[in-house]
């Protein structure tokens, strides 16, 4: 009931959308009615187009994000705890931070071609940044007395990194990953829109080019809902992992 109330603005928006379109206040091409979009969605699922393209996107997004978390998390923690790593990678991260990552789409295509690999690389490059920064700030906040406590109980330096620095970094690291998750959707769909033979972005582009706007809207909505669901799921996971802070 509470959730229903909370999302009631969305329901109002949906009803408004349907009305505006039905009453002919905007052209059906610019904004097809929600019911028409829903019908197109069912067709897309039945044809298998949505699923096959969705799986292609899911693979790219998942692989890219997983690599970004592994590389970015390790890099951020090492940068925070080991000065030479920070001296070498600090400026690189700083310079790379404000670059609009979509500008790298043609670059990654030149390097790795039109297939999966260029999209995965783009997502890794883009998503690494918030993960690295989160891990770095989190690891720097690791309290000296906790590190000393672990050392006095017999943990060596590497062990301390894993047992104390990583859990200390977790709250900020998990926030960085949340930003990366949203970024992964953006980079995935934009790169597929520009150059791809399949995926959500490709489907949106090709349906739009063919004037099949009902179906195009259906894919856009699907991506939006998937993004929303992924973020909610992630928040639940994050809450579980940080249960000790409540």
């Amino acid at each position: 009931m509470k959730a229903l109330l909370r999302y009631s603005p969305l329901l109002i928006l949906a009803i408004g959308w349907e009305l505006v379109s039905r009453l002919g206040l905007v052209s059906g091409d610019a904004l097809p009615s929600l019911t028409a979009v829903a019908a197109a969605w069912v067709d897309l699922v039945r044809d298998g187009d949505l699923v096959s393209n969705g799986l292609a996107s899911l693979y790219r997004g998942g692989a890219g994000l997983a690599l970004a978390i592994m590389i970015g998390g390790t890099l951020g923690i090492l940068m925070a705890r080991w000065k030479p790593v920070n001296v070498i990678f600090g400026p690189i991260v700083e310079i790379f931070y404000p670059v609009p990552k979509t500008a790298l789409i043609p670059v990654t295509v030149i390097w790795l071609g039109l297939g999966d690999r260029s999209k995965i690389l783009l997502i890794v490059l883009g998503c690494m940044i918030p993960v690295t920064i989160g891990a770095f700030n989190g690891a720097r906040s690791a309290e000296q007395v906790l590190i000393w406590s672990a050392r006095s109980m017999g943990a060596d330096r590497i062990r301390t990194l894993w047992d104390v620095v990583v859990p200390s970094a977790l709250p900020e690291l998990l926030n960085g990953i949340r930003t990366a998750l949203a970024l992964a959707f953006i980079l995935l769909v934009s790169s597929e829109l520009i150059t791809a033979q399949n995926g959500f972005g490709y489907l949106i582009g090709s349906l739009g080019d063919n004037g099949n706007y009902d179906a195009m809207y259906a894919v856009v909505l699907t991506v939006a809902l998937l993004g929303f669901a992924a973020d909610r799921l992630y928040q639940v996971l994050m809450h579980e992992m940080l249960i000790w802070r409540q």
Partner: protein
Amino acid sequence: MAQIVVDRVRHTYRPPRGKPVLALEDVSLEVREREFVALLGPSGCGKSTLLYLIGGFLPVESGGIAVDGKPVAAPGPDRGIVFQHFALFPWKTVRGNILYGLERQGMASAERQKRAQHFIDLVGLTGFEDSFPSHLSGGMKQRAALARTLAFDPKILLMDEPFGALDAQTRHLMQTELLGIWQRTPKTVIFVTHDVQEAVYLADRVAVMSARPGRIKTIVDIKVDKTDPGVFKAKAFVDKVDEIWNLVKVEAIKAQGAPAA
């Protein structure tokens, strides 16, 4: 031979920005096995620094520190430490915190569990095994921290103003408990405090430190009957507190930069 030998140690504190500060100069101290020594001095005199040096957390700049005849180079489980702000791992439960040291010692799982429970019971935290530190009061956190350190059985207990963050009532209870535990399982204790009464009540000897740069100014032997429930009012106790307080007062005034009265 003394168990802990601090020999003409000097330490300079180098802040990330600003001028280096000479924190300890020419500090020498010997502590015998199973002795309880309090390090007492005005704030900023380097008493905690000295404790961290013995713990092996900070590098010795000149002079030397040896424990059982071996020079101290790094932290080790022969020297357990209890900090003022508990330093419990916030992501581990009370039990998890206590188990951690035992895991690092490579103790078998069944024995670890048994031993952790024993120390949880010992410090009166039965029923709070699965609580996270954020759900405990200050006194309970310090009990958990004490249990964690006692559990892996260090020969030496380094305590850095462990009761300084507690309210007066809890502090007194904890002092009595610590004394009880120490009498049952004797360990060498170095206890940093700025509370004269606490030092006289707990320690066999009180090392009074001078204002910065810290040196050991005097070492006072304490001989009071701690089993006497009225010990705080006993003449021997009150006289000792007065005697030491007069020594500390001079240093505290110096530390504030005011002329000694």
